């Protein structure tokens, strides 16, 4: 029964999305009041129906309803409930349903909350939202129905890939999807503004919170995903340039650029066409990201080998969306009046540089991710690996760090290059001093050396906007910028230290044999079997000693029964100056156990930086929201004065 309710709600939601699109088009074309009045409530009900479908699917998974094909293929009655719950979106159909649910809810939220935009622009925005949602509804209903039944219900189901049975991963897809959908809302605003020829500061102010919020979620999603890969895959790496990782990185890069150009449009009314173009690009990237991950054309943990029919369907959707967006952009951009101009040496100029460098990095990642796919369609097997990305994007990223240090110290409209140099004295000094100290004390490679030195300069430069101000009266969005830029510096130090100073030991050790790694002496104290919810494991007890301090780590080698798989669970000890990372391998005939040990100095800073970046975004969001509330109150008071 639950499955039927879910499917009926899905059909109704799709029908409402179609109605929403038609009403919006009618209202805009003929200017009749009735269709216009209908759009808002339709959007709200559509969001509610989408939520009902997702709740129905989660209920099916929690109840382990084995008459539903999706549950059979991706769940097991013996799984812990949290993974049954998260299993609802740990698969192709469910994740697509989650996508469209978040989209529907976001559309409802826009309909309820958005009060500043002119009515016509809002209606055009909701119409664009309906158009995007319609494609996904069609995809679900015609190419991947999550509620399909199965004729012979097996008793237990086939289970969920144990690699995905991890609390961190359970909430990774929703986080990323909220980010993707937020970008699609921003894109809908851009479409609405183009249709009604209303590209200006009001549109930018309406769009900014959505861009900021989705950027915060993307940042958190990427950070969490990176940490998951780091401790779950047991290779000691935190970024693999895997196409799935790139699929989330590309929208993030585009959203970062959009975030900065929206600021110029909202505060200075410049970069109009540019901002609209970026919104189109960011949306295209999140669509390509969804397509890459969900069509099964990739070598990756997450991409399931689904039938190519679906891939073709998504590809067609992609062409319609991106092609339509670009066509609209090309047709209407001529009508967008040029915004305010500025000198090259100015805050706007700095933001343009930031946008250009981000676009170059985005282009490199896009080419590196898609080129192998294109080559494969011509029968050439080619895989692009980390060396390519590091070599091509690394130098640009460092240039971006320099731009980030300089940008916030610039004045709007025009600035003086000489005065700027005076302001940059401390950051330059910090960079030089750190570089010199590193060369003398512990010389790393060229890129890490540049990375750590520039990060030091950026850290100093990002705090400068706060110097000499009353910290309590400094607006929250300035704090947001400072914290986010500081987060980049912190992350960069972590990355550079990890690549330059990691110590690794690989050995088959006997019980009691001392093994050196970094500042630690590690001993294998013993091995014992342990049993969990739906797995059994061999657990090593390792003692790690450093300056008379001893810690105990328990890495495991786990065996799951359904599906039959083995995973290694690394054990990580976090110290103030780095992490000791231990992995247990197999035993050999002589009773030795394989151990792989890493000492990774300051590696934790990578994710701490990611959290700081997201926190900065959140602070900005709260700051803008509070200022707006104040302004609205002032307007109301004036009215009754």
């Amino acid at each position: 029964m639950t499955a039927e309710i879910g499917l009926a709600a899905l059909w109704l939601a799709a029908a409402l999305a179609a109605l929403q699109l038609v009403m919006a088009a009618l209202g805009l074309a003929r200017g009749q009041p009735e269709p216009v009045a209908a759009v808002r409530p339709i959007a709200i009900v559509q969001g509610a129906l989408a939520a009902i479908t997702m709740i129905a699917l989660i209920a099916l998974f929690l109840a382990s309803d084995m008459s539903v094909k999706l549950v059979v293929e991706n769940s097991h009655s013996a799984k812990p409930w949290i993974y049954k719950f998260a299993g609802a979106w740990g698969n192709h159909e469910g994740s697509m349903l989650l996508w469209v649910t978040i989209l529907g809810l976001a559309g409802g939220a826009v309909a309820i909350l958005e009060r500043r935009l002119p009515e016509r622009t809002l209606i055009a925005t909701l119409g664009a939202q309906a158009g995007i949602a319609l494609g996904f509804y069609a995809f679900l209903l015609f190419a991947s129905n999550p509620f399909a039944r199965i004729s012979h219900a097996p008793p237990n189901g086939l289970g969920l890939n144990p690699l995905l049975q991890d609390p961190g991963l359970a909430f990774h897809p929703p986080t990323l999807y909220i980010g993707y959908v937020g970008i699609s809302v921003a894109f809908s605003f851009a479409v609405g503004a183009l249709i009604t020829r209303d590209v200006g500061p009001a549109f930018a102010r309406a769009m900014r919170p959505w861009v900021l919020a989705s950027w915060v979620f993307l940042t958190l999603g990427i950070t969490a995903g990176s940490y998951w890969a780091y401790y779950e895959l047991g290779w000691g790496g935190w970024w693999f340039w895997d196409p799935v990782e790139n699929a989330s990185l590309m929208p993030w890069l585009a959203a970062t650029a959009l975030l900065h150009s929206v600021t110029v449009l909202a505060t200075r009314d410049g970069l109009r066409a540019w901002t609209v173009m970026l919104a189109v690009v960011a949306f295209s990237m999140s669509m390509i990201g969804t397509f890459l991950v969900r069509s099964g054309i990739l070598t990756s943990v997450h991409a399931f080998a689904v039938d190519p029919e679906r891939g073709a369907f998504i590809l067609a959707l992609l062409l319609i969306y991106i092609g339509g967006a670009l066509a609209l952009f090309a047709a209407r951009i001529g009508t967008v009046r040029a915004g305010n101009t500025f000198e090259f040496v100015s805050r706007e100029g700095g933001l343009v540089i930031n946008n250009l460098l981000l676009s170059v990095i985005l282009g490199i990642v896009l080419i590196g991710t898609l080129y192998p796919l294109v080559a494969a369609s011509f029968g050439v097997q080619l895989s692009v690996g980390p060396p390519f990305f590091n070599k091509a994007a690394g130098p640009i990223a460092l240039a971006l760090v320099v731009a980030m240090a300089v940008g916030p110290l610039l004045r709007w409209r025009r600035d003086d290059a000489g005065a700027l140099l005076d302001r940059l004295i401390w950051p330059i000094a910090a960079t030089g001093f750190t570089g010199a100290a590193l060369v003398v004390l512990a010389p790393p490679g060229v890129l890490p050396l540049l990375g750590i030195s520039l990060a030091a300069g950026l850290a100093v430069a990002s705090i400068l906007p706060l110097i000499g101000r009353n910290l309590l009266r400094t607006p929250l969005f300035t704090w947001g910028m400072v914290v986010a830029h500081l987060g980049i510096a912190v992350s960069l130090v972590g990355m550079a230290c990890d690549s330059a100073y990691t110590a690794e030991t690989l050995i088959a050790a006997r019980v009691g044999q001392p093994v050196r790694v970094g500042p630690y002496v590690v001993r294998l104290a013993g091995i014992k079997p342990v049993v969990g919810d739906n797995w059994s494991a061999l657990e090593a007890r390792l003692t790690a000693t450093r300056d008379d301090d001893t810690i105990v780590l328990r890495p495991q080698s786990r065996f799951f029964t359904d599906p039959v798989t083995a995973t290694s669970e690394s054990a990580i000890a976090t110290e103030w100056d780095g992490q000791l990372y231990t992995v247990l391998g197999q035993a050999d005939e002589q009773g030795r156990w394989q151990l792989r040990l890493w000492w990774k100095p300051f590696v934790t800073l990578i994710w701490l930086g990611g959290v700081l970046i997201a926190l900065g975004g959140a602070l900005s969001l709260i700051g803008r929201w509070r200022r707006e509330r104040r302004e609205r109150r002032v307007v109301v008071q004036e009215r009754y004065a």
Partner: protein
Amino acid sequence: MKAKHQRLTLALLGVAAVVAAALLAMSAMKDQAAFFYAPSDVQRQGLPLGRAVRLGGMVQAGSITRARDGVTVHFVVGDGRATTPVTFAGITPDLFRERSGVVAEGQFNRDGSFTATNLLAKHDEKYMPPELAGKMHETKTLER
């Protein structure tokens, strides 16, 4: 600067950025693209020496042997037409077993053997590296 000129400058800068990205990508691609090889490709195209490549195929039945140091593994990868011996020092992935697919990253040696720095094994029953999918049958877990 007039508004129109400024917009033109921005557009040109945008185009320049895209071109720069493409050029950078192409030049890095020339040196760094890790080409994917199956054992029979090596016979046809010769050995790619001195650069990182990926080698993919099936781990041949009965070919996995472990060295005395307890961490080095020797095995043979085949694609039905040819085979390549592989050496790998490290903890083998959980799904690394005989008669199952593997992708090894590393370098070829002059004698035609392969030294791997990293192994990627089939992740689960539903997953097959696309590089291998074209070269072998896919097994369906469920009747469609």
